[in-house]
């Protein structure tokens, strides 16, 4: 029943799963929050929204946009209404992600060593060798504990039937986890007592688990190995995240210019001379990591670091060369990997994916293009994407020509209608589309996922694109204990 002013304009699209509403009644898990919100006046809610903005600004949870020679501080838009996940839903997600990561790790080890999966014909050979992120330098190099994906941010979406689908595996340098942590802190400030009253599980363990895993990877068996976080620097849009994680773990935040390699060991330049580095959590992409091996113009990396890595003198997290496993074309083989390596049925489904390198599939996609989203296999962040239902015919034709030039670089998926979640918009709640990115940590003790994640939300009405570069925002994400 739409009883209050707040909910009067809440119209759910009939083809969409809504996280809060079901047949015009509020789902169990949202009831207590909705009751609470209804007691507040619009004025109070506006004040809370304002407070949230001010807190982000004053804590410097911002990124800088440079225009006309001057930096302007922007905050990543935050919606004050939490996204709620039930204990049962979380249980399913957690199991599914663990299973998937286990298979992906085995795949990476296999593909850089014996390549059984290719020899057994489960996956076409050219699928791997045509991937730009497949790195020969990683061949036959045993990474510590056989772990490639230490940190992942796997994107999930929810179709109209309510079931979760994997949209993307981010296995290289996934970002956004600081927003999972900060959004929770902000909710604590703007809605006092609401979190304990709803038995929301805590996310604060994340930096502790990550630090524990990083320390355990040290090649030197010493009491206090030196762990560093390697950032591209102040001008990177995720710089805030890098400083937050370094602070929360108590590790040194370094830039490429702070490190130097000598005799295949990595050192950092300190006020008391050189100090050996044991573990590097890098937030610099493979391509820029070592100018001697990869992009020789890179100033972000460290010359010689790959040799130190291959000699086993330093651990790099995530491993180098993971891009072959989260490539958008390889993605469609992940269910096959799960069956091949684990002999299990995938718990979480893949979105059906068409390889445009395949002529028949390509023709099918071209004739149904208005129901398709076409993506570049090696791009992320919502760049280079075509939404068939909202693009002009001329643009579609241009894009098709682009595809025909290099079909391996493209995949298509049917447009999945993301689930919607209530957002506070100008004095009322309105449904907006959301996805979910939980962060999984893999260490020698196994895979751990803090109960929560980043819910990204497409703040524009009707939009299905949640990427922050395309007008997306985020929400605090609650996993309920009961």
């Amino acid at each position, binding site marked *: 029943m739409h009883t209050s002013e707040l909910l009067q304009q809440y119209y759910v699209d009939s083809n969409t799963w809504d996280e809060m509403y079901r047949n015009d009644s509020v789902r169990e898990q949202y009831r207590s929050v909705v009751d609470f919100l209804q007691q507040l006046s619009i004025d109070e809610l506006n004040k809370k929204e304002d407070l949230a903005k001010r807190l982000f*600004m*004053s*804590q*410097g949870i911002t990124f800088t946009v440079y225009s006309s020679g*001057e930096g302007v*501080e922007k905050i990543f838009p935050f919606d004050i209404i939490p996204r709620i996940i039930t204990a049962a839903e979380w249980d399913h997600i957690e199991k599914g992600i663990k299973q998937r990561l286990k298979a992906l790790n085995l795949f990476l080890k296999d593909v850089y060593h014996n390549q059984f999966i290719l020899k057994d014909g489960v996956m076409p050979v050219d699928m791997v060798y045509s991937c730009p992120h497949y790195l020969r330098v990683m061949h036959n190099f045993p990474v510590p504990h056989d772990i490639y994906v230490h940190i992942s941010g796997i994107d999930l979406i929810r179709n109209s039937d309510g079931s979760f689908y994997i949209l993307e595996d981010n296995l290289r340098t996934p970002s956004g986890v600081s927003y999972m942590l900060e959004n929770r802190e902000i909710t604590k400030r703007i809605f006092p007592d609401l979190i304990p009253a709803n038995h929301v599980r805590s996310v604060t363990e994340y930096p502790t688990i990550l630090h524990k895993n990083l320390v355990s990877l040290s090649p030197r068996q010493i009491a206090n190995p030196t762990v560093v976080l390697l950032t591209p*620097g*102040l001008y990177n849009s995720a*710089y805030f995240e890098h*400083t*937050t994680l*370094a*602070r929360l773990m108590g*590790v*040194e*935040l*370094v*830039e490429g*210019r*702070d490190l130097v390699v000598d005799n295949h060991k990595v050192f*950092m*330049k*300190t*006020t*008391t*001379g050189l100090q050996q580095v044991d573990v590097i959590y890098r937030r610099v992409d493979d391509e820029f990591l070592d100018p001697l091996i990869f992009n020789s113009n890179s100033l972000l990396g460290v010359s010689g670091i790959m040799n130190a890595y291959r000699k086993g003198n330093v651990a790099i997290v995530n491993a180098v060369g993971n891009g072959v496993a989260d490539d958008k074309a390889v993605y469609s083989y992940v269910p096959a990997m799960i069956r091949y390596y684990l002999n299990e049925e995938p718990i979480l489904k893949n979105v059906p994916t068409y390889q445009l390198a395949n002529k028949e599939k390509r023709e099918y996609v071209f004739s149904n293009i208005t129901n398709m989203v076409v993506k570049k296999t090696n791009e992320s962040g919502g760049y280079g994407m075509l939404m068939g239902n909202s693009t002009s015919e001329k643009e579609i034709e241009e894009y098709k020509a682009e595809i025909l030039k290099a079909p391996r670089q493209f995949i298509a998926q049917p447009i999945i209608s993301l689930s919607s979640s209530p957002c506070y918009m100008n004095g009322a709640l309105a449904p907006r589309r959301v996805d979910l990115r939980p962060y999984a940590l893999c260490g020698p003790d196994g895979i751990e996922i803090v109960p929560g994640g980043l819910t990204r939300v497409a703040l524009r009405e009707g939009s299905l694109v949640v990427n922050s570069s395309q007008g997306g925002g985020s929400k605090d994400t609650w996993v309920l204990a009961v």
Partner: protein
Amino acid sequence: MLSRVADSLYWMSRYMERCDGMLRMLKINYAASQDDMDEFSWVPALKLFSYMDDQEAAAISKNSRDVLLYMVIAKENSNSVLNIVTKARENGRSVQDHITKEMWQCLNDFYHMMREENISDWLKKDDPITILDSLLKQCTVYFGTMDVTMARGESHAFINLGKFLERGVQTADILDVKFSALDGEYDKAADTTYWKYLLLSISGLELYLKTYRGGFEAANIVEQSVLNGNFPRSIMYSVKNLRQYFERLRSDKNYTSFNEVMFMIGKLESKIKFSTTQTIVKEGLSKFLQETKTDFLEIGNALNKNYFAYS
């Protein structure tokens, strides 16, 4: 600690100290300008804290509002409060994991405050002292936050090295400009307001009145602002702190570097310790202040070479 981090902490701190000194100076000068607009000139202040040449300074030196706008919020003035605070914050931003969250928030808030529109309104139309006071308060909050939240480790030591080196240079500079304006005839300034405002701009008037009876005398002012180790803006106080904080960096790993810088600080400290107002005046106050300033800057260079060089 990373050399780059030490460098950023040191500069963050130097900029904040400069900001504080500058705001004090602007406030007192503005107050002085309200006493006697005919006699008063902004030229000394402009020469101290901006890169203007004599001609440019003279051109706006009779217009307090223009000077304040230029010194506080002008984007084109690389030494304006706005730009100094921006630089302090940028340095702080790159070492957020080495300062406390409280300190970072304080710098960040100050930065956002400097970009608010109402500052220029206050400077143009209303009482400038009100806005200068609230900016000074931000500096005070920064110093207090540092004092109560920062652990007494290496970060704290580098922050204080920057702070006291900047302060020592600043006091030497202010004294030099103010005294050289009198061309050696220190009794010429029979007008007590001249000395009063000099003392006020280094927050030393109250101490002076309590210490010395019988009006203002150049020799006493030199004694307090150069030699008195208990006066927080004296040169002696800055050098003493510089030495104390530097001693904390003593380590087996960088014996040579430490000794090189320690020698320079110790030499400067001894020089001041074994001076009297008589010997200073006899040798020439201006020469003494110039040399002191050079000594400070050379200590800065030595720190840079031995501790911050990372490229």
